[in-house]
């Protein structure tokens, strides 16, 4: 046994435009172990693995593998050093065949040309190893289901014969049978003295597979310990343990409100699996859970973006999901959605602030086919005043504004349509604390006016501070509906990991 760890990170820091993603992280990992990395959303797990895999360059700090100092500036350099990562966002090329993808970077060659037969055999052998004989190496990745793609991704990583294998939520899309296969495979790799970094939100998985656990919080490495030395509750505490730093407006007294928006058994493409939820008039319902459990799809379904949604949707007596965003925003439903990514789905960045504000409600300031300049100016001024958007001139490009003010423009744009149902998809992501507080106050004010608000946030403190009720999503369904004093961080984190039941027993 050498006296230095196989992978060693020392003093790694990484900042993204003001926010710190990693802060002075020391981390190490040994060969022949499966090492879990745990943490909330935004704890720095993704940044950590991207740094190790050569996607991101750390601002400061050093990294060594097998005692050798290394510095990766692109993924191929990490691969050459035996570091292979299975990313959450798949790195497969949809229009190439399965065999092409498995051998993408280093295909077998003869006379400088890719040897198709050797490549085919190689792919077949690797697919057999992970029990995916049903995948045709000649088939296009485009035609595979999400779970099969994930397995091909694993095959691709295996094909590079890694010394350090990083799995980022690699089992999230798999079927039960595949998950077992992957477990067996990881056990084999441990035998072969491969180091595995395993990122998962499923506690039972971590429990079953991993030898060592590391907890990250707010970009810092909190603690590393051997499996079995901490209880689930301790781990959840380690993951939370931070001060609540935002001021929330006072919550009104609890009262029952007749539901305005009701959804039952909403299903879509295996991403939503029977979600059931209701939101009353004047109520703020928080939508929580880990990233990618179907929250985004739920909102898109309600806003008419998805095709082939099954289940019942009832908006103020109007049955059925709208067929398009245009139908969603019109009377009688009057739904609006503040989307997840304001830069691509919320704003037309090069266009002016005024045009962006009016984008959803041109019909309100038009006479016949023509936009009335006087009405337009009045409406824009009113919106800017209402949200106190700090701008130079309404004719400036919206790209010139800060993140917080851009988000205010998106929200103001939708408020101009006078919506009855407001869907907010993580509206406070990446904006400053002051603007966050303004948005919290605005939400409460809108609720007071009798609008129904569904609010997805990745920040648990917001869910606790802002919402009348909190629904937690896990794997496409609502697994917990918390109200009043039941909304606590422990309950939210527990339900997010879907260990709510066992945790409750532990507490009582």
């Amino acid at each position, binding site marked *: 046994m050498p006296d230095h760890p196989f992978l060693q990170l020392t003093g790694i820091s990484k900042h993204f435009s003001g926010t710190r993603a990693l802060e002075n992280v020391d981390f190490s990992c040994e060969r022949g172990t499966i090492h879990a990395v745990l943490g909330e959303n935004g704890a720095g797990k993704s940044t950590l693995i991207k740094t190790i895999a050569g996607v991101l360059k750390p601002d400061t700090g050093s990294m060594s593998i097998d005692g050798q100092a290394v510095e990766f500036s*692109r993924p191929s350099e990490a*691969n050459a050093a035996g570091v292979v990562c299975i990313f959450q966002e798949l*790195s*497969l090329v949809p*229009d*190439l065949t399965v065999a092409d993808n498995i051998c993408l970077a280093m295909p077998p060659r003869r006379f400088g*040309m890719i040897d198709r037969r050797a490549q085919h055999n190689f792919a077949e052998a690797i697919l057999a190893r992970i029990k995916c004989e049903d995948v045709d190496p000649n088939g296009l990745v485009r035609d595979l289901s999400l779970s099969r793609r994930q397995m091909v991704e694993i095959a691709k990583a295996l094909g590079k014969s890694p010394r350090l294998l990083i799995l980022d939520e690699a089992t999230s899309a798999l079927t039960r049978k595949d998950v077992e296969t992957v477990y067996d495979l990881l056990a084999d790799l441990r035998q072969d003295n491969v180091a595995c970094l395993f990122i998962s939100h499923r506690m039972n998985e971590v429990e079953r597979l991993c030898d060592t656990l590391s907890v990250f919080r707010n970009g810092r490495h909190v603690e590393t310990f051997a499996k079995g030395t901490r209880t689930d509750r301790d781990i959840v505490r380690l993951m939370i343990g931070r001060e609540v730093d935002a001021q929330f407006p006072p919550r009104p007294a609890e009262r029952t409100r007749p539901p305005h928006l009701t959804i039952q058994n909403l299903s879509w493409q295996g991403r939503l699996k029977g979600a059931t939820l209701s939101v009353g008039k004047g109520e703020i319902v928080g939508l929580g859970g880990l990233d990618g459990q179907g929250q985004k799809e739920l909102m898109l379904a309600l806003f008419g973006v*998805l*095709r082939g949604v099954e289940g019942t949707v009832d908006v103020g007596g109007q049955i059925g999901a709208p067929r398009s965003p245009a139908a969603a925003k019109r009377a009688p439903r009057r739904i609006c959605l503040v989307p997840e990514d304001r830069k691509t789905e919320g704003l037309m960045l090069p266009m002016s602030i005024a045009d962006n504000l009016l984008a959803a409600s041109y019909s309100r300031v038009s006479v016949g086919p023509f936009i009335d300049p006087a009405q337009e100016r009045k409406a824009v001024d009113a919106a800017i005043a209402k949200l106190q958007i700090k701008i130079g001139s309404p004719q400036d490009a919206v790209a010139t504004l800060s993140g917080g003010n851009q988000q205010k423009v998106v929200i103001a744009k939708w408020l101009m349509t006078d919506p009855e149902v407001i869907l907010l998809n993580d509206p406070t992501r990446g904006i400053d604390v002051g603007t966050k507080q303004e948005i919290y106050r605005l939400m409460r004010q809108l609720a007071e006016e009798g609008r129904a608000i569904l609010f997805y946030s990745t920040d648990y403190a917001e869910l606790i501070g802002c919402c009348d009720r909190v629904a937690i999503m896990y794997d496409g369904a609502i697994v917990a509906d918390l109200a009043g004093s039941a909304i606590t961080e422990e309950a939210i984190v527990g339900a997010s990991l879907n260990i709510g039941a066992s945790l409750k027993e532990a507490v009582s």
Partner: protein
Amino acid sequence: MTVARAFGTSLRQNRGFYGAVVLLCVLYLVYNLLHPRGFSSAVLIQNANESVAIVFLAMAQTIPVLLGGLDLSVGAVMTLAACIASVLVNGSPLQIIFGMVVTLAAGTAFGLCNGLIVVYGRLQPIIATLATGAIAMGLALFIRPKPGGDIDGDLNWALTNSLWDFVDTYALFDPDASWFAPFAWIPVPILIMLVFGVGVWLPFRRTIIGRTIYAIGSAEGAAYMSGLPINRAKIAAFTLAGFFASCGGLYLAIQTASGNADISQAGAYTLNSIAAVVLGGTSLLGGIGGAIGSMIGALILRVMSFYFRILSIDPLLQPLVEGVVLLAAVSLGAFRVLRIKNRLELFR
């Protein structure tokens, strides 16, 4: 059994390509049936001669399109190559070969410049090549201000007729030898397309660079994350496009025995090359298709124009009919949209 299955898979994955092959076969068969001298070597030679330039141009266009871009300079590079050839391809055999090599090298170098500008200038291919295309046109006009030029007559005769004439012109061996009879009828232009087009493209497609081009057009992020040589592939794509375009230009010069820096002709060739690429089953979004399909697409365009000659339709109707056929063919590819479940993906 496995061969049948593999073929079935290929059939499903390349519907556009096989559809184009069938369309071409039907069109050409009917054409020959209608033609008073159909199914003769003479008709085939004439048709092949008229197809070489657009076939090479379509193949040139395919490669940037596979990346997800467009090369608006292919027609101009072809014209530039033709003008260079009209000056250099004459004299002693050695001088002729030198002239042909210089012509191809010039077009290839021009393509390389396109690639360098796109990669290191970080410009959109469409605007970068619009500009470089104008530069190529300017150079062509500089070299050949008026149509004309001097191309070796033997070469012109040998390359635009059947294999028999080729052998006869250069007295390689007795063209009437009995073993040669089965091949003697083959038009030389068809062989040129096969040797320079298929012979370059198929091996290229099986290199890492070739596959990287597909990967970039399909999902550039995934290609990067997989550690593929993205910049080199982009440069190679435009370079190869320049090579194919100059092949087309060289042949055009030999065929017409002159060079002509005709701006409107260059523009028409560029636009037709895009149409041919689409007809051949290559996606303008990149990642799907190939140069062989574009070759078929170019031939379809050409055969359609042959119909106007034998059917004595008003030639003024030709653009209208071609437009309708192109629109119909391209519409078949749009059915994919109906299968998308998340409408947001339509806009990505």
